[in-house]
C-alpha cells in the first residue's frame, strides 16, 4: 500500500487517533474511579469496577496505538474515499439544529423544517412530494400521539402542539 493509504507515525493515521481517544477515555475513567473510592477487595467501593475497567481500556487503547504505529493504518481521507460524506454531515447538522429547536419552539415547528431539509438533503425528493410529506407526517404523528395515545410532545414558547 502507498503511504497515502497506510500511514504509520503520521497525524492523519486514523487508527492512531482512535487509540488516543480510547486512552484519554481510559485515563478519565480511572480518575473517576479513584475519585469515587475503590474500597477494599473485601468490600469494593463505587469506583472499584470503574477503576479496573479504565485500566483495561488503557491496555486495549495502547494495543491499538502500538498496532497503528507499527503496522500503520488508513488515513482519514481513505476512510471517507468514494463516499458522499457531505450527506451524513448535513444530516448531523440538521439533527443538531433540531435538538436545539425542539425544546424552544416545540415539536411541530421544529419537525416540519427538519423533515423538509432531510427530504431535500438525502437524494432530493421533488418539492411537490417533499412538502406534503414534511407537513403531513409530523402533523399525523402529533395527532395520533396527542389525541389517541395522550402523549404530550414539546410545544415550545409559542405553545403550538
Amino acid at each position, binding site marked *: 500500500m502507498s503511504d497515502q493509504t497506510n500511514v504509520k507515525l503520521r497525524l492523519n493515521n486514523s487508527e492512531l487517533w482512535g487509540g488516543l481517544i480510547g486512552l484519554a477515555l481510559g485515563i478519565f475513567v480511572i480518575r473517576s474511579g479513584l475519585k469515587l473510592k475503590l474500597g477494599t477487595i473485601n*468490600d469494593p467501593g463505587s469506583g472499584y469496577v470503574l477503576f479496573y475497567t479504565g485500566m483495561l481500556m488503557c491496555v486495549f487503547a495502547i494495543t491499538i496505538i502500538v498496532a497503528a504505529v507499527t503496522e500503520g493504518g488508513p488515513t482519514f481521507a481513505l476512510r471517507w474515499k468514494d463516499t458522499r460524506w457531505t450527506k451524513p454531515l448535513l444530516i448531523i447538522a440538521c439533527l443538531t439544529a433540531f435538538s436545539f429547536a425542539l425544546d424552544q419552539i416545540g415539536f411541530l415547528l421544529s419537525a416540519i423544517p427538519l423533515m423538509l431539509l432531510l427530504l431535500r438533503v438525502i437524494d432530493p425528493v421533488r418539492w411537490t412530494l417533499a412538502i406534503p*410529506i414534511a407537513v403531513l407526517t409530523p402533523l399525523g*404523528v402529533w395527532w395520533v400521539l396527542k389525541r389517541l395515545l395522550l402523549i404530550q410532545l414539546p410545544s415550545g414558547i409559542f405553545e403550538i402542539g
Partner: protein
Amino acid sequence: MDTLVNVAHGFGVALLPINLLYCFIGVFIGTLVGVLPGIGPISAMSLLLPITLSGTPESGIIMMAGIYYGSMYGGSTTSILVNIPGEAASVVTCIDGHQMAKQGRAGPALGISALGSFIAGTFSLVALMLIAPSLANVAIAFGPAEYFSLMVLGLVVLTFLTQGSMAKALLMACIGIVLGLIGLDSITAQPRLTFGRMELIDGIGLVPVVMGLFGIAEVLINTEQHIKRDVINARITQLLPNKADWKASAGPISRGTILGFFLGILPGGGAVVASFASYALEKRLSKTPERFGNGAIEGVAGPESANNAAAGGAFIPLMTLGIPPNVVMALLLGAFVIHGLQPGPLLITQNPGLFWGIVASMYIGNVMLLVLNLPLIGMWVQLLKLPYNILFPLIILFTIIGVYCSSNNVFDVYVMIAFGVIGYSMRKLGYEPAPLVLAFVLGPMLENNLRKSLILSQGDLLTFVQRPISAACLVLAVVLLVGPLLPSLRKKRELVALDEGV
C-alpha cells in the same frame, strides 16, 4: 405431561386476540426490516422498544420476539432476489440464492428458504420448551461468581466474533460497561459520572443509546452511498421445491437446524455465526463442492435453517439465566426490564403465562411467517422498490418520536443524536457497536455480581476458579482472548467475524 399442560396454557395466552395482533405486527415488521437492506432487526427492535410500553408485557415481548425471527425469514428474500443481504444473517444466502434466481429458480430458492426456516424454527421451539425448564432448575443453583463469569464469557465471545481488531471490540465492551454504570450505585447510592445532571441520576436509557447507535448511525452510513438495487424482475413461479430439491435439502436443513440451535445458545453466538458455520459445513460435506457459489440449493437450505434455529436457541440463556447471549436478546432483556420483569431461573415458575405464552406465540408466528413469505412474496418484491430518500427521513422522525415517548424527556433525544454521531464515527473508524451495547446492558449486572462474589468470599479471588461452572467459563474466555495471537485461530476468527454481532 407438565410440559403439555404448560404449552396449552401458553396457547391460551398467545391466542388472545390482542396477542395475536401483536404477534402479527411483530412478524410483519420483522419480515419488512428483513426485506429492506440497511435496516436490521436491531434497528427495528430499538425503534419499537418504546411501543411495548403501551401494552401488557406478554404483548410487547411477543411483538419484539416476532421482529427477530421474522427478520430471519425476510432477510433471505432480498439476498435471493437482489443479491444484497436484508440483514447480517442472510449474507451467505446471497451466494447461492441469487445464482439460483439468475438461473430462473428464484421460486424454489425462496420456497426452500421459507420452508427450511419453518422446520428449523419449529424444532428450536420444541427444544426451547424441553430444555429451558430443566436448565432453569439448574440455574437456581448459580451464585454471583457463576453469573459474573458467564457474563464475562458472553462479552468475550461477542468481541471474538466481532469484525476487525479484537482490541477495538474489547475497548468497545469496556466503554459499554462504563456507560452502563452511569447513575446511582445500586449498593452505596452514590452518583457516578453524572456530571451534576439530574437526568443522568437514573443512568442513560437503553432506548436512546441503541436507537442512536443502530437507528441514526445506520441511516448516516447508508446515505453515504448510492444504494443500487438489481431486483430480479422475472415473475416468480413454482415456489414449492420439487422432489430433487427436497432430497438435496433434507440433510442441510437437519444439520443446519441442530448446528444453528446449539450455536444460538452459546453466549456471544447467534444467527450470523450459525449461517456461516452451516454453509461451511455443507460445502465440506458435499460430494460436489464446486456447485457451491453457482446456485446449489444446499447453500440456501442449510444457512437459512441454521439462522432460524439460532434465533430460537438464543432465547434459552435469556429466559433461563437472565443473560442475553447477543445484542438482540439484550434489547429483549430491556423490554422485560421496562415492564419490571427479570428474566432468569425464576421467570418460568413465577410468570408461567409469560414464558409459555411467548413460546406458543412463536409457533403461531412461524405459521404466520410461512403465509407471509410464500403466497405474499410479490408484495415484498414490490417493497424492494421503495425509495430510500423518503424512507430515511421517516426513520429519523420515528426514532426521535420513539425516544421521546419512551421517557417524555427531551434530554433522551439529545442523547440519541449524540450516540448517532458517535455510532457513525465508530463505524467509520472500524469500531463495531455490538459489544458496546451488550456490555452496556450487562455492565450493571456484571458489577453487582462481581462485588457480591467478593463480599461473600471475603475478597478471595479464588472463588471464581474454585466453582466448576465459573472456572470453565473463565478458562474458555481466556482461550478466546489469547486465541487471536495464534495465526491459525486468527484466520478462523476472520472467517466467522460478524457485522452486527447478532
